[in-house]
């Protein structure tokens, strides 16, 4: 160790943390290291030494004092000392030598010359993730100009006058941590070994969207993991301004995000990816999918995200491409009380006129005030697809609806259909976090942290055009997005035990208004469509978890139990069309839909480490998991029909569809609900696993298996289609090996089996309508579970702790891959799609990942990092798919062949400023397949972001971000010609936070 020393000369500048008069400070050490949990009894009063080895007593009167030192009831020593006055302080170093306490008492009076006697704080800063040293962290003494940097071993030494101090440790990647109430006693060195986590659990980040992926921390975690792992911490999300899990994930090698919501890992879409929140499986809010929309999780509550790309037995069996493990924030290390405010502008959208419509009075909260609620008269009459047979005369037929009832139902609806233009407001938001850690009388600490967050932003598509076959035109789409979050974690921690309770409420409301104007040259029709859509998504979760260490930390038991509910509420979605200036009654649809998914999840994991010989270690992991998810989808579609030719349908819609025209019998309501719009589904998984890892020193070999039982069911309450069940029991083995060739080079290999289950509605015996596109989706009850053989090879080379390059090659052979594809269908059904087990898919990919420091001085650091992946994913089509698509094989859906990320960053350490340039790019990927035609492609795109952060002082910090700087056109094409394109504009945002 070569500690950096800095002798404090300006002792007089110490204004804070002066030692109180009449204090006795005990410092307990053994072999130069602090001793904790030693009982010091002073005049009958007991104190336990803390983890820093100190125990202190206030209000020491003048006179003789008796001291007993004991541990676990065993007396180690006893002695006495005298103080002459109540102003005199005592510093007592108790050193344990051969199990006996040897004391050294120094008395002094504050304000006198001997009080200036100096001591030291010395120690090592280690990473929680890697247990390796953290280099280049700045350690400063609160209220002084004093500061040192940790050296290559993470070591540091501070020379300070005796007293009590607060230290701040900061590192560009690990964030900041405060250490409070540290004692320095004369002529002594206070040992301080600190750990820091890249998850940044010491500080609370506001929601300013500047997060990005920092390979250095990923590498740090990876190095210690037996699987190929990437990691993103809050500090990284904050630094690069990523506001949600979805935006942060796209920084990771081999990961892309589709539609701002769903991750594609290593060329594999949602069905091959698993996600967990705090270790539990998550419910989804999308009616057609099983995977989780990641934009639901704001950076404000996330503690970190790991993306593990190779399979290990403790992961869900469907984590083929990878598993996205999201962790919400844990207990704070220090008191937190922080408020942040944000403002944002879009150069195209803000203050320009965008589409909107009359909503409710609490829209700004993201909560509908009842304006869009389905009237009870509608709810009670529109049961499933039970037709609304209008019988203009007679009575008594229960299958008929008579005129008075019809008018009652129709007039219970608000007939509000017109689109207005409003000026788009700037984005704005705030977040507030508070928390603390309280030492208890026992050996543990209590802590809590709560956060609330609100954000209101508007996004719009500009210059949006469509040009598909005979149809060409333009559309305008605006979306107001309101996010609200509340989060509370509370818990108890000791060195061996952690108990946490986490309560999460996430809400995300989108209010979309879209108008399109398209000319169909083949039918010679001008088609104008309107869509108004209000979607509230909500995640409510309560989780309890515990971590217990036993037997000198060689055994660990982790458990978690959670309940969660997701909801997607879409009240009164309104859509209608005019063709050639004439309102078409059959196109008006008012849809009320609600999805609720209840999830119950529990798991327990046990780890035991033992030495087989002096050199060979064995780690055994085993665990159980159970998850139960129940989903209910209820949907009602309300339409209108004319009863005669009396209406002038060239008028404005509100002059046609209104109470008067229902009352005078010109219009009637129609039930447009289909039998399969509503469904109930369940998805239950139970699993058990065991694995053993043998550590030969330079080589670790892991072998294990997971057994997974699953059962999924689907029922349509209003359809005669049979209920549907898929049961399966699978064993998934894994073998992997790591070889540390030397300090710098590490090689890894893994072979595993995984699986992929059909989506909940994909097994349906019936046809459903896609809620987004209204196209028919035919289920396939014959679908079987896909089985995947995975092979991963990886080499990692570490130039230094922060600099590395890694190269990975992988291959995945998927038997019976499920693809969404075209089908034998007729008429309007021909635009529908189905799901089919294709013959096989073969993915081969390489990934390159690096981080290099460009600058490393006491004041400046800089880095360049990036990743690139090339993935060739070919699916060999089944006979039916080959016949219908007109080819035997093609690229896997949603998969870009090339994905690249690049980041350049600089930090000015003294002023705590950082700036980062981020580049993200993907190549063409298949959006949808077509029958005997080229597939629809989402065209390659590059986005560029610039993020800036400035910590003005201990209390204040400023963040700014320019997002989507080049504002590249988002486009979709087919056969080389663009069929849809638009711009989203450049976002500029700034945030300010203040810590009280």
């Amino acid at each position, binding site marked *: 160790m070569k500690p950096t020393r800095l002798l404090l000369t300006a002792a007089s500048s110490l204004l804070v943390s002066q030692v109180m008069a009449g204090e006795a400070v005990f410092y307990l050490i053994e072999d130069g290291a602090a001793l904790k949990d030693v009982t010091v009894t002073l005049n009958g009063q007991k104190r336990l030494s803390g983890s820093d080895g100190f125990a202190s007593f206030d209000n020491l009167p003048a006179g003789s004092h008796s001291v007993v030192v004991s541990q676990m009831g065993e007396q180690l020593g006893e002695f006495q000392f005298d103080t002459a006055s109540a102003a005199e302080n005592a510093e007592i170093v108790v050193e344990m030598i051969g199990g006996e306490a040897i004391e050294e008492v120094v008395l002094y009076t504050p304000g006198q010359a001997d009080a200036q006697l100096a001591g030291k704080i010395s120690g090592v800063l280690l990473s929680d993730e890697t247990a390796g040293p953290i280099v280049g962290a700045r350690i400063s003494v609160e209220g002084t100009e004093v500061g040192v940097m940790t050296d290559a071993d993470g070591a540091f030494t501070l020379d300070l006058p005796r007293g009590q101090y607060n230290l701040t440790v900061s590192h560009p990647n690990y964030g900041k941590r405060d250490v409070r109430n540290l004692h320095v006693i004369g002529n002594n060195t206070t040992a301080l070994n600190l750990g820091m986590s890249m998850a940044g659990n010491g500080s609370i980040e506001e929601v300013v969207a500047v997060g990005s992926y920092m390979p250095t921390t990923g590498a740090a975690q990876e190095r210690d993991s037996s699987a190929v792992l990437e990691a993103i911490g809050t500090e990284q999300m904050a630094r690069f301004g990523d506001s949600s899990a979805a935006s942060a994930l796209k920084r990771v090698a081999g990961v892309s995000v589709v539609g701002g919501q769903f991750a594609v890992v290593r060329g594999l879409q949602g069905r091959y990816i698993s996600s967990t929140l705090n270790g539990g499986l998550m419910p989804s809010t999308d009616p057609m999918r099983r995977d989780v929309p990641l934009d639901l999780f704001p950076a404000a509550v996330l503690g970190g995200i790991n993306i593990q790309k190779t399979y290990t037995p403790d992961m869900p069996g469907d984590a083929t491409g990878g598993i996205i493990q999201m962790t919400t924030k844990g207990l704070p290390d220090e008191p937190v009380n922080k408020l942040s405010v944000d403002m944002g502008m879009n150069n195209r959208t803000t203050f320009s006129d965008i589409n909107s419509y009359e909503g409710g009075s609490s829209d700004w909260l993201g909560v509908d005030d009842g304006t869009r609620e389905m009237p009870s008269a509608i709810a009670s009459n529109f049961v499933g697809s039970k037709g609304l047979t209008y*019988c203009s005369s007679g009575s008594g037929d*229960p*299958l008929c609806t008579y005129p008075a009832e019809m008018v009652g139902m129709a007039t219970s609806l608000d007939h509000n259909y017109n689109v207005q233009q409003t000026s788009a407001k700037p984005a704005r938001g705030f977040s507030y976090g508070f928390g603390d850690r309280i030492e208890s009388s026992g050996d543990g600490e209590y802590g809590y942290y709560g956060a609330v967050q609100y954000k209101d932003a508007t996004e719009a598509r500009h210059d949006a055009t469509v040009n598909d*076959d005979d149809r060409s035109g333009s559309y305008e789409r605006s979306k107001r997005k309101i996010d609200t979050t509340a989060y509370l974690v509370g818990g108890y921690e000791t060195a061996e035990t952690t108990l946490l309770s986490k309560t999460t409420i996430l809400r995300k409301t989108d209010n979309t208004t879209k108008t399109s104007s398209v000319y169909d040259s*083949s039918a010679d029709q001008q088609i104008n469509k309107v869509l108004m859509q209000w979607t509230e998504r909500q995640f409510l979760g309560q989780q309890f978890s515990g971590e217990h260490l036993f037997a000198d930390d060689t055994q660990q038991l982790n458990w978690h139990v959670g309940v969660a509910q997701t909801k997607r509420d879409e009240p009164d979605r309104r859509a209608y069309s005019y063709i050639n200036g004439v309102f078409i009654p059959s196109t008006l649809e008012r849809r009320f839909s609600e999805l609720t998914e209840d999830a119950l999840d529990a798991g327990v994991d046990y780890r035991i480490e033992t030495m087989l010989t002096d050199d060979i270690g064995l780690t055994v992991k085993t665990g159980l998991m159970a998850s139960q998810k129940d989903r209910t989808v209820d949907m009602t579609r309300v339409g209108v029909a004319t009863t005669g030719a009396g209406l002038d349908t060239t008028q404005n819609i509100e002059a046609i569809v209104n109470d008067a025209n229902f009352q005078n019998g010109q219009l009637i309501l129609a039930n447009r609900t289909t*039998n399969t719009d509503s469904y109930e589904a369940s998805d239950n998984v139970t699993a058990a696993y065991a694995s053993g890892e043998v550590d030969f020193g330079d080589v670790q070999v892991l072998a294990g298996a997971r057994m997974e039982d699953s059962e999924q069911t689907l029922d349509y309450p209003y359809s005669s289609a049979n209920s549907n069940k898929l049961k399966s029991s699978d064993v998934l083995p894994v073998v992997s090996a790591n070889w540390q060739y030397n300090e710098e080079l590490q090689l890894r290999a893994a072979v595993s089996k995984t699986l992929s289950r059909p989506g909940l509605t994909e097994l349906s015996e019936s046809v459903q309508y896609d809620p987004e596109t209204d196209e*028919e989706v035919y289920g396939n009850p014959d679908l079987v579970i896909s089985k995947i053989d995975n092979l991963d090879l990886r080499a990692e080379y570490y130039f230094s702790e922060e600099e590395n390059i890694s190269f990975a090659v992988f291959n995945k052979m998927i038997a019976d891959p499920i693809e969404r594809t075209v089908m034998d269908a007729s*008429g309007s*059904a021909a635009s529908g799609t189905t799901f089919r087990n294709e013959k096989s898919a073969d993915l081969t990919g390489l990934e390159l990942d690096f981080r290099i420091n460009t600058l490393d001085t006491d004041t400046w650091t800089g880095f360049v990092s990036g990743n690139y992946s090339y993935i060739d994913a070919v699916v060999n089509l089944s006979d039916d798919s080959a*016949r219908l698509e007109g080819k035997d094989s093609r690229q896997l859906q949603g998969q870009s062949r090339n994905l690249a990320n690049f980041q350049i960053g600089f930090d000015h350490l003294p002023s705590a400023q950082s700036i980062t340039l981020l580049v993200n790019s993907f190549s063409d990927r298949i959006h949808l397949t077509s029958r005997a035609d080229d597939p629809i492609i989402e065209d390659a795109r590059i986005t560029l972001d610039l993020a800036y952060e400035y910590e003005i002082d201990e209390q204040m910090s400023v963040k700014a971000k320019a997002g989507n700087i080049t504002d590249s056109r988002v486009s979709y094409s087919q056969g080389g010609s663009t069929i849809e394109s638009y711009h989203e504009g450049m976002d500029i945002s700034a945030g300010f936070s203040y810590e009280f």
Partner: protein
Amino acid sequence: MEFKKKYLVAALLAATTASIVGCGGSSSSSNKDTGNTDTDTDTEVTYDFVTCNSDETVCTLEGTVDKDYTMKAGVEYRLNGFVTVGAGNVELADAAAVTAAKSAGVTLTIEPGVEVKAYNTGVLLVTRGSKLMAEGTAAAPITFSSVQDDNYDGLGEWGGVVIQGFAPQYGLGDTGVCYGTGTVCNVAGEGGDGIGYFGGNDMADNSGVMKYVRIAEAGKVAGPDNEINGLSLQGVGSGTTIDYIQIHNSLDDGIEWFGGNVNVTHAVLTNNDDDDIDFDEGFQGNIQYAIVLKNQSATATPSGTNDPRGIEGNSDLSSNKQVSATHAALSNITLIGGAINNGQPAAKLRGEVNADLSKVVATGFASGCLEVKSSEATNVSVQDMVCDSTDALLKNDSPATGSLISSAAAITLNAAGAVLNAEAVATSITADVTAVDNGSDFAFDATTYAGAVNPNGTDNWTSGWVIEGSLDTLTAVNQ
């Protein structure tokens, strides 16, 4: 939400029986119909799909017709939801399953004069392997309409009649016949979530007989952008007979052929909101004697997402989705358009379709009599096709063979629908027209007039059986 379909049905049945009382003295909620007997056994046969009132004057059909059944004259029948004849609309795995489906087929017989009134959800679906025997007479035609009111004036008040067969269907983009290199087809049909699958390799398949049948007020919206046609013929084979058929006030097409080989003669297509004669997906067949009369109101506009034409061949899709196997021959057709056809021609043939039009008369289509685009490689021939002099003859390009004749005077008609203009009875008219060979030995009647009805008055085939008043506006055309 453990609210299952079964309970719903039970609740509805209970409600129905509470007010109407179940028929036949059967103690259960399932019902027998003493008019129908099973010849194989002496035991009383129950028909779970029928519920009647106490005096058996009104019977409601619902669910799957799983055994032979006859709808009797004098009873008013109602259709509630999909009334599915047989169970051939499931996916059939192999040839053995096809054979089994054929032998498991049932026959629904409708006696002459029966009135069938459908609730809003009502659809009559005859699945492959099963038969509909609906043989009315000119004096006692069979009628389908809605329960909404007693007239036939509504539009889209119920679903419609869908016939499915084992005849071939051809996919978009010339991806070939539905059975590919095998023998089995499972083509998802248009019409919503109860339709299921049709198709096969049997061109001569027989789905029964429809004769003197009138279908009114059909075309309910079956799903987003999806309306059921008055009569949908999905893979129906040439063994089927469809003769003397009227589709009136359909919110969608009159008759649409989705592949198949069934010939149709004597069709009256009145006041339909979309196309009247619509064929695609490899339909190979012949149509003789059809009269199309659109809404004659000067302010009429479509009520559905429709672009109404008299004849449409091939679907309204881009040229790279064409189906070259489609081949129809049409003779003696009268097409009378109106304001509702704004922008649309009398006949539109799209993409690589084969169509032979002979003795066709069109009037009232301001934007043109015939639309083809040579760029789409259409293969259309016309012969003795007369268009109103006040209408444009062509929208876009000329047909591959033949040319259109412009009438000297505006087209006028008599009450039976015969064209009175001189061009319609010109001596140059070719009597013999070649039929499409679809294996049915169909031959066109040799006629020496253009249009659907012989002007010499010897065969006023529209008289007597069509919906009263539905052809009243004929004589007002161009008068």
